[in-house]
């Protein structure tokens, strides 16, 4: 299962990086005479109502999905770790306050939080990224906080402190390495949900504005034409499935590898 995931992820990343060079057609080029073509050898996934080649749009979409996915998660990771460390190491009231805020963010169903922010700020790439960051940060912060709390009171930390190690040193040399592993695995499993969120919000018209070839856009346009040109919608779903399955399989395999407890349960 892990190998399948790895291969799928590789495909997506490949498309993301080399997108502009491998698209057979310009994803944005409108070519009305060619519209509504069913899949063929020239147009592997057919064309849409404006004659744009769907296959190219899909490949271009991978770049959008991955960029947003990875950058937002990276930012959320950094932010989360900082906040988690603050919560764990800082004064009690800060911990309680942060926890309260995190739990409150949790109690918002994801998409609904996204919609709220979009209502306030309007649909754009920045809004989308902001939404993802707000949603993801609490999870990472919590993980970091737990790790911090566990280690903070452990004996070997007390021993090191008595030898004169500064708090900063403890954080960077001892805490972070311990937390990075599980955090990264959780983060990699979050990539598909972020990509899905982006696609979903764009589908509803609240995400990335047109004409950017986000996969959500393809789905949205395709849905209205579902009876006439079903291939659009089918093609729009495929990359999402590949991405989500790929990252999840990979993440699961990684987690099984690293967590011996889970391995024993198999």
């Amino acid at each position, binding site marked *: *299962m892990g190998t399948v995931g790895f291969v799928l992820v590789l495909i997506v990343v490949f498309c993301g990086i080399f997108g502009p060079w491998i698209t057979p057609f310009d994803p944005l080029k409108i070519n009305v005479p060619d519209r509504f073509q069913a899949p063929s050898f020239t147009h592997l996934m057919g064309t849409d109502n404006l004659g744009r080649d769907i296959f190219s749009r899909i490949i271009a979409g991978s770049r959008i999905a991955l960029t947003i996915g990875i950058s937002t998660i990276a930012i959320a990771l950094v932010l989360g770790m900082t906040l988690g460390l603050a919560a764990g190491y800082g004064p009690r009231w800060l911990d309680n306050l942060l926890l*309260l*805020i995190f*739990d*409150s*963010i*949790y*109690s*918002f*169903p*994801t*998409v*609904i*939080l996204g*919609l*709220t*922010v*979009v*209502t*306030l*700020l*309007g649909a754009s790439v920045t809004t989308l990224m902001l939404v993802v960051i707000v949603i993801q940060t609490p999870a990472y912060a919590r993980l970091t906080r737990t790790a911090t709390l566990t280690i903070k009171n452990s004996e070997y930390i007390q021993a090191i402190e008595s030898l004169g190690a500064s708090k900063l040193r403890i954080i960077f040399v001892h805490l972070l390495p311990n937390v990075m592993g599980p955090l990264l695995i959780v983060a990699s499993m979050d990539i*598909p949900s972020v990509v*899905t969120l982006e*696609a*979903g919000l764009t*589908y*509803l*018209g*609240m995400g990335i504005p047109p004409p950017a070839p986000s996969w959500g856009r393809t*789905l949205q346009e395709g*849905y209205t034409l*579902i*009876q006439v040109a*079903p291939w659009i*919608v*089918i093609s729009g*779903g495929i990359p*999402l*499935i590949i991405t*989500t*399955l790929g*990252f*999840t*399989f990979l993440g*699961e395999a990684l987690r099984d590898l690293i967590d011996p407890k889970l391995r024993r*349960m*198999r």
Partner: protein
Amino acid sequence: MLFYAIQRIGLSILILITSMVMLFSALKFIPGDPATIMLGSRANPEMRARITEELGLNDPIVVQLGTFFGRLLQGNLGTDLWSKRPVAMMVMENLPYTLLLIGIGLGWAALLGIPLGCMSAVKRNSFIDKFTGVISVGTISIPSFVVAIYLILIFAIALGWLPVIGAGEKGDWHDQAMHLVMPSFALGLGWVGYLARIVRASMLEVMGENHIRTARAFGLPELRIIKDYALRIAILPTITLLAVAVGSLLSSAVFVEAIFARPGIGKLIVDAASMRNFPVVQGGVLTTVALFALIMPIADLLVAWLDPRVRANL
């Protein structure tokens, strides 16, 4: 037990209040004039002045907060900017549809997930176990709206078996049921995997325990052991998971309701959001948050009540 209940619900209410304050202050802290944001670029100075006056946007923060909570306690969620209808009423009209959808969706997830998880645990490492494992990950990953669209392609367009749009004729149970099939299935499918996995894990843990061996040593039939001994215990973490599922399903319901053009909170919020109709969005969001915030402690209390060990220790 009672004290524990009060504690849990109290905490949830605190979180709920914090969420509402955050929601409220979000409007204040964003750049730009709230009135313009709400009305969009079509606003002209008159409309802006009127909105500002109506919503008391110029009053000191504390007063606004106070009015906000005051109104909430009275059940007043504000008024729709355009139609002037009370938001509370709009929410009440739509909420039952969403609740029904989520309920049936969870039903699908439980119907498929729990037996699969159970069988995987009982027949460890068999074909069914591995198959369930892959299916679980698969269903967890694939987004619900993609599932929904593909379902529509297959069952509505290609086969013509099920209707797509809306919730069906009022009063016609059969029609409404038909309209529920695809949306609820698309919604619930994603959680089949989670449920199967947690049932499997809990069952494996329980089945390995000594008291199961004792039950076998007394000749109890295997089916009885699974049902009354193993499953009873394994179901406890499942209940907690189901509560979490509600939150996730509330999110997915937004997409499903949009795709199937079903009435519901999700659709209400989406439509309002696209029109920047903040009061309606706010009202809808508050309702969903409250719903979720209350489901969690209820699930925890249910688990505590079902497990005599926890009950005795409270």
